[in-house]
């Protein structure tokens, strides 16, 4: 029997490699822990081609092994597909402070000055999860987390 809360706490120490201000639990990648045997951490990848996916699995393995949970397996689950709705509200605020407009149905807003007078530069940004926008008031470019 695994101590689920303890394992979840450990996983919450793992930051997303591309967006190091939010952890993988807040990001909605960790879907739960099954008792087993063997006990398993269930994860759902954000984007199929995202290079961070393999890296995150390795980080989880390392974290679990380091804490003596080397018997806990990691299981990838594809369905239901990951959605930005699984990102927590707290994480939205962290994204904004980090300079990324969080996902949602709201009008794109500049994370620096708050203006909604913005334009889309490209639907594809520096990582699969982001689109590139620019603020027409403070003139700064910014990333917006794509609704997915």
């Amino acid at each position: 029997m695994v101590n689920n809360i303890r394992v979840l706490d450990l996983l919450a120490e793992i930051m997303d490699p591309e967006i190091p201000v939010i952890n993988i639990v807040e990001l909605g990648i960790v879907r739960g822990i099954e008792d087993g045997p063997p006990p398993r951490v269930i994860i759902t990848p954000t984007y199929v081609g995202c290079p961070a996916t393999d890296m995150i699995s390795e980080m989880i393995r390392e974290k679990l092994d380091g804490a003596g949970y080397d018997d806990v397996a990691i299981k990838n689950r594809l369905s239901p597909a990951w959605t930005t709705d699984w990102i927590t509200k707290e994480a939205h605020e962290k994204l904004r402070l980090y300079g990324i407009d969080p996902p949602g149905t709201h009008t794109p807003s500049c994370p620096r000055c708050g203006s909604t007078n913005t334009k889309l530069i490209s639907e594809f940004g520096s990582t699969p999860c982001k689109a590139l926008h620019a603020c027409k008031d403070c003139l700064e470019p910014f990333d917006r987390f794509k609704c997915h």
Partner: protein
Amino acid sequence: MPKKPETVYMLRLADNALILGQRLSEMCGHGPEMELDMAMTNMSLDLIGQAKLLFEHILTWEDLAPNADVLAMTRPLEQYSNCLLVAQPNVDFAHIMLRQYLFSSMQKFQYEALLRSSDKTLAAIAEKSLKEIAYHIRFAKSWVLRLGDGTDESRARMSDALESLWRFTGEMFANDAGLSDAVAAGLSTNFALIYGDWKLEVKSVLSEAGGLTPPPDTRMIMGGHQGQHDENLGHILSDMQFMQLSYPGLNW
């Protein structure tokens, strides 16, 4: 060579994603501007990600190779079963965007036909990929419209691309043995039935793109699904396979 109807069909899907992903990756560092460069490499990454999931899943059905990399990277040319369209060269940005639009708009129907598959993992891969395909369609379509409805030169280039690529579209919807066996096995619904709807949708977009019309469907070129490829795939493979054939099992 795959023997089961399931693996024959899934290999086709995997090869389509792999080869188009490889084609798009050739544009890395060569896009007309940085945002477009990133868009093309992002789409390439999505497609190679789909291919990876599919190749790994195929191996759970049939022992075709020791691992997904070997299956993806080391087969002889005639064992690749992608459609001919995805291997067509990156002639110019109009060709690249039209190829993407024609393929992604087809792929949407092809993957929707897998959502109620008897193979739950395949259905999950399709569900996941469809979210990304929606972006690919939107991006490529916006450029088909912009170039078709743009300057004389951009319209001429889009028109040339259509003249050159249209003859490869029939193959994608061919109701051949690979598809009908997969349908009989419950793997997919018969998405070839959607060919007419797809053509209506694409023709309406082309018409909006400066009044472009595709050439008549008199002779569609086929054979890719059966491993009969034109010289383009050979050029892709000589580049893509070089490292794995020279240094088997090489890792980054």
